[in-house]
């Protein structure tokens, strides 16, 4: 059993977080790291959340909190890939498979963005978070979140125009 909590926060049953956010967290992860790594990242995201849950000091914005964890797990995957690069000829297939319903080349372009911009774009368009929630997930201000999305989209647009 978890130690007795202070009575200050009333956290809802963890199952409720899972029911409400499992689908969108998975969509975000699949877009961000591809479906193969998304499976593990999804498990790690919710296991981390479950470990930390009883000591959480607030019960507002649980959605942004879960996405903050998902974002960190996605970063781990991207960093691990940077350390152990996949041979270049296998990348296009992997990315194409990863994209699922999305436009593969476009998703690939998003994945090449810097960390914050990439996450902000995926949170906005794969998980449908608003800018305030993106700010909470990325631990930055709402205007900064908006700026990251805008900058990310501008970079993609430039690359797209060249292509």
């Amino acid at each position, binding site marked *: 059993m978890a130690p007795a909590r202070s009575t200050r926060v009333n956290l809802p*049953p963890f199952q409720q977080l899972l029911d409400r956010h499992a689908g969108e967290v998975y969509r975000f992860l699949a877009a961000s790291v591809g479906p193969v790594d998304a499976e593990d990242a999804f498990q790690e995201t919710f296991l981390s959340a479950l470990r930390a849950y009883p000591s959480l000091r607030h019960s507002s914005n649980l959605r942004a909190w879960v996405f903050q964890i998902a974002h960190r797990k996605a970063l781990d995957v991207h960093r691990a890939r940077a350390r152990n690069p996949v041979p270049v000829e296998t990348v296009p297939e992997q990315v194409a498979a990863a994209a699922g319903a999305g436009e593969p080349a476009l998703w690939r372009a998003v994945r090449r963005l810097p960390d914050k911009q990439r996450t902000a774009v995926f949170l906005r368009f794969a998980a449908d978070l608003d800018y305030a929630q993106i700010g909470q997930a990325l631990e930055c201000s709402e205007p900064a979140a908006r700026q990251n999305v805008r900058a990310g989209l501008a970079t993609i647009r430039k690359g797209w125009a060249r292509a």
Partner: protein
Amino acid sequence: MHERVSRLIGRAEAEGLVDVAYAETDTPVGRLLVAATPRGLVRVSFHGEAHEAVLGELAERLSPRVLEAPSRLDMVRRELEEYFEGGRREFDVPLDWSLTGSTFRRRVLERTAKIPYGATASYRDVASAAGNERAVRAAGTALGANPIPIVVPCHRVLRSGGALGGYGGGLEAKRFLLDLEAGRSPLAPTG
């Protein structure tokens, strides 16, 4: 997604991260919510109590790590099934009394748990067995707050004189359980 979430819950259980596991189970007295901690069965609630509110209460009073993990409830669900088929007269699942606050209430419920299948006792009987013959009303309150009805058979406690008294699951459910245990073919409660 279902498989993904099941796998997650399996891993959470393996890591000891599920403090309260729950499941729903259909019975002749309606759909029951059953919940267990690693110590044992902690809560049974009737359909009349909104299950969402019950889960919120479990999160608040025990731990917010409340997850739908039906495999942890397999034993109690099987025992309930056998009970309603008339084949089981005692429950063997371990109980967790965490939700029963005071010593008096706990004694009332432990005394109630000893009333044999098919028998009944009065509120006064359980009050005096719990150490205070005059605390009939408090015994009634303790029974009304029984967190583990059916398994802790508060339906076997009646008014002196045999009137049904009250029941958290509704009087029809109480009558149904008494008829079942008396070997009278119970009429399925309506609604």
